[in-house]
Each structure stands twice: as structure tokens, then as C-alpha cells.
């Protein structure tokens, strides 16, 4: 009996592994997703090893060299204070990565448990959480982040909190929708019949089954977080100078658009490539992991 059980477990392990391998192979065949992965790797590498790649203080002004066009010494030119744009982009990648990770973590930490509880328990709890979600979704995400910044104030920490909270309703809706379909499955019913506690059912049986959409949303959410934070920086209500933040760099470059367009051009390319990387990977992950794309 025990041997049979063991053999069944082994079989399910290998079949699960085979499924994983099949999905991985599908992901690898997707050239766009691979390109996205490469972009993310470059971005992560730059963010992690920025100070080694480009040593020195990226915020130290050098007014004699202000608004220089790209040259051998400064491959992307200099900004209005004579600082190397390449140096600031390299150091800025660390700031934007920090924001993106903070935002997505906040979205996950608040959105996933609320979505799980809302979908699993239903009733009044669900009603309450969904009305709050409705209210938050009554505003476009960026506008909600902007409204929160208006209350909390500018700066890195408040940017993370504002953009993070604006993402919470997306996770709540996503997770709740998945839970609604999963909670009716036989294995959940069986676990309930065996007297398993709700927390254990949610963590062991339901959460693993909603991980695919959460993973996809996390990849897409990283891109959105970078875009939103850059947008706030551009408006002057996000991360404040002299911190090298891509959006703020673009915002300050706007004033020199007619004389030195390169100041605003290159930070925008950096934002675009980072967001593109996460979006391509998110799309690829969805195609590889979501069974609805097997068609």
C-alpha cells in the first residue's frame, strides 16, 4: 500500500516535472520573451554593478561641461549641470529597480492576502473588500498614485508607497477571480472535509494554484511600476534631485529640448527598454504558463 502510494507520488512528481520542462521549452522557443529576458538581465546587471561599472558620484556637478553632446569621454553627453548622462542612467537603474521591487512587493503583500480572503470567504468580507477595490479602481492607476503622492508628499519612500497602493486593487481582483474558480475544486473540498484549517487550505491548496497569474502580473507590474515612478519623477512629485532617477532626469531635460535634446532622449530610452523587457517576459510567461494559451 505504502509502496503504491510512493510510486504514485513519484509518478506525479515526474509528470509535474515534465509539464514544467514542457513549459520551459515553450518559453525558450518564444524569441520575444527571450529578448525580454536578456533586457531584464542587462538591467539587473547594470543596477547591481552600477557603481563598479561607473564609479564616482553621479550627482556631482561640473558646470564647465554642461549640456555637452555625446563624446568619447561622455558617450551619452552631459546634462545641464555637466554630469554624465550615462553615469546617471547607470546609477538610476538601481533607483528604479529599488522602486519597482518595493512597489510590487507592497502590491503582493497587501493584494494577495486580501484577494485570497475575499475570494475564499465571500459574503460580507468579500463585499467590503470589493467595494474598497471598486473605489480604488474608479481612478486610473496613475491618477490614484498621484493623489496619494499629493497626500503623502514627494520622495523615494512615498513614491513606492503611492505606486504600490495603486497596484493593490489589481492584485486583489486577479487573485479573487482565480480563488473563486479554485475553491470549488474537489481537492479543496476534500481538504475541508478532512478538517484542515482555512489558513492551511489557503496556503497549501489555493495559493499554489493562483501562482501563475500572480507571476505574470508581477512581471508586468514591474514594468508598470517603473513607468509610474518615472511619470511621477517627470512631474516633479516623485524622487527628488539630485538622486539620479530616470523620470526626473527626463523632466529636467525638458527645459533644454530645443538646444540639447539628448538630455531628455537617453533616460527615456532606458525607461522604455526596461519596461519593454518586463512586458515581453510577462507576455511570454503568460503564453507558456497559462493553460488557456495552449489553443
Amino acid at each position: 500500500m505504502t509502496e503504491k502510494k510512493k510510486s504514485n507520488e513519484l509518478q506525479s512528481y515526474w509528470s509535474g516535472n515534465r509539464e514544467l520542462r514542457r513549459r520551459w521549452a515553450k518559453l525558450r522557443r518564444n524569441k520575444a520573451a527571450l529578448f525580454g529576458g536578456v533586457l531584464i538581465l542587462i538591467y539587473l546587471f547594470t543596477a547591481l554593478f552600477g557603481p563598479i561599472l561607473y564609479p564616482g558620484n553621479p550627482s556631482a556637478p561640473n558646470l564647465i561641461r554642461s549640456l555637452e553632446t555625446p563624446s568619447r569621454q561622455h558617450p551619452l553627453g552631459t546634462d545641464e549641470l555637466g554630469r554624465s548622462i550615462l553615469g546617471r542612467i547607470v546609477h538610476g537603474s538601481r533607483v528604479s529597480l529599488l522602486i519597482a521591487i518595493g512597489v510590487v512587493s507592497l502590491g503582493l503583500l497587501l493584494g494577495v492576502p486580501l484577494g485570497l480572503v475575499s475570494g475564499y470567504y465571500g459574503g460580507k468580507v468579500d463585499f467590503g473588500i470589493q467595494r474598497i477595490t471598486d473605489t480604488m479602481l474608479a481612478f486610473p492607476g496613475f491618477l490614484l498614485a498621484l493623489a496619494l503622492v499629493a497626500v503623502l508628499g514627494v520622495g523615494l519612500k512615498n513614491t513606492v508607497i503611492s505606486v504600490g497602493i495603486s497596484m493593490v486593487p489589481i492584485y486583489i481582483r486577479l487573485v479573487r477571480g482565480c480563488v473563486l474558480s479554485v475553491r470549488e475544486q474537489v481537492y479543496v473540498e476534500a481538504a475541508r472535509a478532512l478538517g484542515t484549517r482555512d489558513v492551511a487550505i489557503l496556503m497549501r491548496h489555493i495559493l499554489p494554484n493562483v501562482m501563475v497569474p500572480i507571476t505574470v502580473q508581477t512581471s508586468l507590474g514591474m514594468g508598470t511600476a517603473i513607468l509610474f515612478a518615472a511619470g511621477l519623477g517627470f512631474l516633479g512629485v516623485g524622487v527628488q534631485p539630485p538622486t539620479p532617477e530616470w523620470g526626473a532626469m527626463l523632466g529636467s531635460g525638458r527645459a533644454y529640448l530645443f538646444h540639447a535634446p539628448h538630455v531628455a532622449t537617453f533616460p527615456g530610452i532606458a525607461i522604455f527598454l526596461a519596461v519593454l523587457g518586463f512586458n515581453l517576459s510577462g507576455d511570454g510567461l503568460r503564453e507558456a504558463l497559462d493553460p488557456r494559451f495552449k489553443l
Partner: protein
Amino acid sequence: MLSCSRLVAPKIDWNMLRYVIKRLISTLPVLIGISFLLFFMLRMLPGDPAQVLAGQMATPEEVQNIRHQLGLDRPIFTQYALFLGRLVRFDLGRSARTQNPVIEEVWARLPNTILLAVAAIILACLFGIPAGILSAVRPYTWIDYLVTSMALFGISMPVFWLGLMLVVLFSVILQWLPAGGTGTWKHVILPSITLAAFVVAFIARMTRASMMEALAQDYTTTARSKGLKESVVVVKHALKNALIPIITVVGLQFGLLLGGAVLTETVFAWPGLGRLIVDSILARDYPVIQGAILIFGLLYILVNLMVDLVYAFVDPRIRYD
């Protein structure tokens, strides 16, 4: 003499009317939620909201005056009730900067934002829907890859950067169009293209997915087997059935567009609601921020309601029961 038939009142679709009322009622919790959010926005401010509104230079008497005017010296529930009462009368207070009624400031800017949003959504539909159809009709060909790549580029591109690059190209290098401001039709072109680029990608993607599904259905195969021309099959059979998700995404994008308008209006110095919000945040003019955000929320709810109603015209199978 007028014929009698012309004088007969148009037939009222009671089901539809009932549905509209039901939908309007269902927005009430959201409206109450928005009012909560706006009410507590002012209360969440660090320090004394009256002091924030009065400014740092205000005397204690002036601060006390503002506190009394806003009812901040009353119990919190009374304050909320007063706030709701003012909201119902569209009394959103006065701007801390200009001392003008907030509603006047908001109304003055609203038409500009709506003009920009409508121009952008029309432009986005004009490009997005045909691109999506083309992509679905020729799947996995170079044209499909081109459309899907462009769509992904559009979604990933910061709208404010695209705006700046368009200014560099069309205003600085070619000198064809003005870099900002308002007044002539030429001023609308660059901001609406910028805003449309943000939305066209979503519309193209949804049109492609929806059309591909419709083209794989039995009724499309039947239409083809009857010997109908491919253009008739695509437009009359597939597109007609694929319209619902497309309309949904157009409606949803309208909301995103309002968010994008904040950035686009800043890039092009366009005197709309979005710019008003940004200027008010920078000046800490909270009554105006509240008012403008409230109007944005209402607009979004209204658009969603309209999308629901448009479904009926597109798909008669939908019953409003």
C-alpha cells in the same frame, strides 16, 4: 399638416431604462467610496489641514477662521455629513491659490481634457482596430509581427518621453507644429497623437485576439463555404461578433487615457484638468486636487456606464434584465 405617426412618442425600452437605473444605483457605493477617499485625503495630511490651506504666513486668527469655515472644529461625522452635503451641491470649496470656487476652475479646464481624450480615442480606434484586424487576418506573418511588436512598443513607451520626442521631431527639427499651448487645430495634433499611442496598442491587441477567436468560429467557416468574399466574412461576420471586447477595451482605455492626460498635458502645456492637478499638487492647493480628482472619478464611472449601454446597440442578444 403633420402626420399622426410623427407625433407619437418614441417607444420606451423599459428593460433598458430599468437597467440604466440599476446601474446608476450600483455606482452609489463607489461614489460614497470616492467621497470617503476625498474626505480622508485632507484629514491624512501631516499637521493641521487648516494651517496647510492657510499657508505658513497665516496668523492664528486666519487659521482659526479657515478651521471654522471648513467645519474642522466639529465632530468628524458632522464634518463628513457637511462634506457630502457640499458635494451634492457641487460646492467643492475655494482654491487656496486663486480663491476662485474650485468648481469654476475645474469646469474651465474640463472641455480641454475631454477634447484631447476624445481626439486621442478616435485616433486610436482609427489605427488600432484596422491594425488588429489586419494582424488577425494574416496571423504569424510579417504584418502580424509588425503590429504586435508596435503594440508592445506602444505599451512600454513612456507617454511623456514620446511627447518630447515628437516635439523634437515636429517642432524643433521640421518646425511643422507648435511645441505646446492651445488655440488652433494644429495645437491638438501632437498631444492627441501622444495620448493615442498609449491606447492604440491596447486596442490593436484586443482587436487581434478577439478577431482571431471570431475567425475560428463555425459561423465564419459557414460564411466562407457559402462563397462569400473574404472582406464580407471579415467585416460582416467576424468583426460584428468581435466588437464587444473591443468596445470594452476602448471604454477601459478611456480611463487610462485620463491618467495619461496628466502627463501629456504637462508635456504640451495643455490647459486641462491633468495639468491643473499637477500644478495644484506642487502648490499644495488641496481643495482643487480634491475637486479635479472627483471629476476624473465621475468621468470614469460615466464612461463605464456608457460602454455598458453601447453593448445593447452592438449586440442585440444582450438583454437588460
